[in-house]
């Protein structure tokens, strides 16, 4: 059988080597290589999605080879319903962000080499089934991201880059300690997630400690309040395509970690922490919303809206119900597509005006109608307009959590109102009102930019109108996970 997962993970590395061997003056060729590679990666992820048997809740496309036999470490890849949406999302955004990167004009060779390395790390994180391998991929993401923010970012890029790096590294080191403790307390010692999930013979006290150690790693990545402070810096300073990847894929690595590792491996600990997760989710939703409302920087507003929207994922995950988990996973996917679109749109505007100050725009709706339409579509999707994907997933999260934490859920609904407030307020300041004379020559969104946005809006509408399609894809797996956790079958 063709090792489709290995190909997906390591093709970008091959591309990176090819780019490193290309002279740096050949920028066009470098872009073509990067685009070609990410297109093939997307194609592979799409093929895997199509071939995926949604009825089977076990691992599929499994590849397993001994790597470090002395420690029982395996090169072990596989995907199930939880990883498949993430793999597809990574493939899709990997391609779109690559096309969006054509605007990068300095140090093109380094940029695309690092970009492809990043792609490998992200893909690997979502399909590794061995804790050691997972950690390796998780950390591989850090280094290229540091450079991508630090070299091609905005005015405070160096600060943002090292802050992102240190926050995530500190968290992941505690995750490593947790992983090692899991290993030494299993019998026989193993890093195999599937095996560990099947036995988990740990006492509650031990599970709490492990959950906390893993939590530090994942919560910083999500980010869960109060570990979110790296996010606005990194998202704002990063170049547009990298913001897209950060918001679209990297944040999901954290919540994916909860679903893939924390929950199945230390279920009692996870249940014990459920209420705390819900409270942190609520704080994140409301706090993120209020702070977004106060922003005058377009990009910062979108960044804080991420804190709020990722809060819904955590809320859905905190309750151990069918709809909560379905909602959480769907929200991960939807936030990836919607926020990626918003960041792309911020980038489109910034490329033309070199400002992100919301108060300096105004009246652009008449000047650039196509751009305005796109911005409206993505904003409405983000604020959870029924008929678009964001509504479905946030509704499911709230529905799932309502059966468990009524008051927290009610309070969380404020997040949706806040979302409507800051997004509509933003649209008013950017699109409506009198046209700022400075922008009367503002050029319309171009074909390449539309190419990066249209696939996203198609997916957003498709899921909004027919959510059952994607829910059927991963539903059986999430439901099996809820069952294994002893959750509520609703």
């Amino acid at each position, binding site marked *: 059988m063709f090792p489709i997962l290995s190909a997906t993970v390591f093709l970008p590395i091959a591309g990176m080597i090819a780019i490193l061997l290309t002279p740096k003056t050949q920028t066009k060729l470098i872009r073509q290589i990067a685009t070609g590679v990410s297109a093939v990666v997307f194609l592979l992820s799409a093929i895997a999605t199509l071939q995926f048997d949604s009825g089977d809740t076990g691992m599929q496309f499994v590849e397993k080879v001994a790597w470090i036999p*002395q*420690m029982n470490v395996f090169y072990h890849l596989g995907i199930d319903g939880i990883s498949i949406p993430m793999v597809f999302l990574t493939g899709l955004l990997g391609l779109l962000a690559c096309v969006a990167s054509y605007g990068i004009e300095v140090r093109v060779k380094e940029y695309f080499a690092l970009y492809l390395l990043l792609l490998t790390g992200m893909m690997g994180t979502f399909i590794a089934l061995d804790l*050691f391998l997972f950690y*390796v991929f998780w950390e*591989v993401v850090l280094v290229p991201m540091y450079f991508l923010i630090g070299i091609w970012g905005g005015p405070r890029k*160096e600060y943002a880059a090292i802050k992102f790096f240190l926050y995530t590294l*500190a968290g992941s*080191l505690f995750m490593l*300690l947790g992983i090692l403790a899991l290993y*030494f307390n299993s019998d026989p010692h193993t890093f195999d997630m599937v095996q560990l999930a099947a036995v988990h013979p740990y006492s509650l006290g031990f599970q709490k400690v492990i959950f906390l150690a893993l939590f530090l790693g994942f919560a910083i990545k999500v980010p869960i309040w109060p570990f979110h402070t790296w996010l606005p810096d990194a998202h704002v300073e990063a170049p547009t395509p990298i913001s897209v990847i950060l918001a679209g894929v990297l944040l999901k690595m954290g919540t994916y970690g909860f679903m893939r590792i924390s929950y199945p491996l230390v279920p009692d600990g996870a249940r014990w922490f459920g209420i705390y997760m819900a409270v942190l989710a609520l704080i994140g939703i409301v706090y993120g919303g209020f702070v977004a409302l106060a922003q005058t920087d377009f990009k910062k507003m979108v960044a804080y809206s991420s804190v709020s929207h990722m809060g819904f994922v955590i809320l859905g995950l905190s309750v151990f119900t069918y709809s909560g988990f379905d909602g959480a996973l769907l929200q991960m996917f939807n936030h990836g597509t919607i926020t990626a679109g918003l960041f792309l749109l911020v980038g489109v505007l910034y490329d033309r005006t070199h400002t992100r100050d919301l108060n300096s725009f105004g009246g652009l709706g008449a000047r650039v109608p196509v751009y305005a339409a796109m911005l409206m579509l993505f904003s409405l999707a983000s604020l959870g307009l029924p008929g678009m994907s964001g509504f479905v997933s946030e509704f499911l999260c709230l529905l799932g959590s309502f059966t468990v934490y009524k008051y927290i859920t009610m309070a969380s609904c404020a997040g949706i109102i806040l979302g409507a407030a800051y997004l509509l307020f933003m649209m008013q300041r950017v699109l409506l009102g009198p046209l700022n004379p400075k922008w009367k020559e503002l050029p319309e969104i171009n074909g390449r930019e539309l190419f990066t946005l249209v696939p996203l809006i198609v997916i957003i509408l498709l899921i909004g109108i027919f959510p059952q399609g994607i829910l059927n894809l991963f539903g059986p797996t999430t439901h099996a996970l809820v069952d294994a956790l002893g959750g509520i079958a609703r």
Partner: protein
Amino acid sequence: MNVLASLPFFITESILIAAGFLILLLDLFVENKKALGWLAFAGILVSAFFIRVPAEPQPLFFGHFLVDPFSVFFKTAVLGIMAMTVLMTLAYKALPPKQEGEMYAILSFLGVGLIMMGSASNLLMIFISIEFVSLTSYILAGFEKKDPKSNEAALKYLLFGSVASGVMLYGMSLIFGLTGTTELLGIKAAVSASALNHLLLLAMVLLMVGFAFKISAAPFHMWAPDVYTGAPTPVTAFLTVGPKALGFAVLLRVLMTAFTPFIFYWSAILAALAALTMTFGNVIAVSQTNIKRLLAYSSIAQAGYILMGAVAATQIGLSGVLIYIVAYAFTNLGAFVVVIIAANHFGTEDIESYAGLAKRSPFLAAALTVFFISLAGIPPLAGFIGKFYVFAGIIQGRFYALAVIAALNSAVAAYYYFKVVKQMYFTEPKDCAPLAQPFPLMAALGIAFAGVFILGVCPAPLIELARVSLSF
């Protein structure tokens, strides 16, 4: 085993000694000192060819010199480190040209001394070998005679080293007085036979002070930053790796052979030393502006991580020590190669001079970045495998507090390593001329670079080697 019977197992060392004397002799006639360097390099290669693991441990020279898998492991490591050091010295510009020949001779002898440290199975032999290594190291540290900093380094090293040796010797004399033997195995028998003897415990602690000095563990590290900064850079590279690695070898052998009944005590002492060492090294490294000094403090911190492996004293932890040492040797030597290339060009070791290196010499910048990432313990590089193993060791031994301290330390360390990376990649260069890349340095760099990657991606053979080398 008597002297004659011992010789067949002593070929590697004999070749090194012969090479050393030959270089010393030829130094009188040969004008081209580089040729002597290549001779030393050839000597190392030839001697490496005769490395054998005997089927049974061989106690040479009346039981003073033990050839077992453990000593062979370190012998191989020493030869590798020596070869790299010679390559670095060959292209180091600041050395006084006339004395360069002596340097290669001393290095060859120093290699023998280090091998002796790894093989000594008798307190007397341990003391002699450590003193031999120390004395030759003092000379090397002061090799740039005209440079006051180099002189300061040598003198400081000598003074601190003498005190440490004195303390260690005092411990040894106590042990001999209490047990009546200097053989490690004999000491073990005596330690096991009697009830807890507090004087013996004190003697062990005194002995450990001497070893802690060698591996520059806090609070016995005071000499290290100044010595590492003042010494000629190839010597610094060597000192941060060679004597340090062999210091660990002696430490492990003595503790694991003679003092196993005291494991509870020395494990606690090592845990405290480890926590102190890594914290001290990392915190002070943060504010450094000179790359040699930064690497000096980083190497102190790294010793703290390596100590963690010995704390747990499980099979995983102990092999972690060996794995970490190999990974660290490749990485640190590689980093110093780039530092030498840069110092040859800039004439200074300020971190600021690395500004924009990525644009001037992309490969050098990338290589140094890779070494720093490896030192920071980020996968998939050699340093991560080492760190993973020592972490595994302490988690297995349930030293959770130490594990948390080490994790926090690793984050601090990443900060200062990336301070240099930031200079190389985010800052604009003052001029864009690429740096000269002489062949010996590029060869050493290539070896280190490949080693860091290969050990990181396929660590299994090294892990297996470390496992079978734990032959206490």
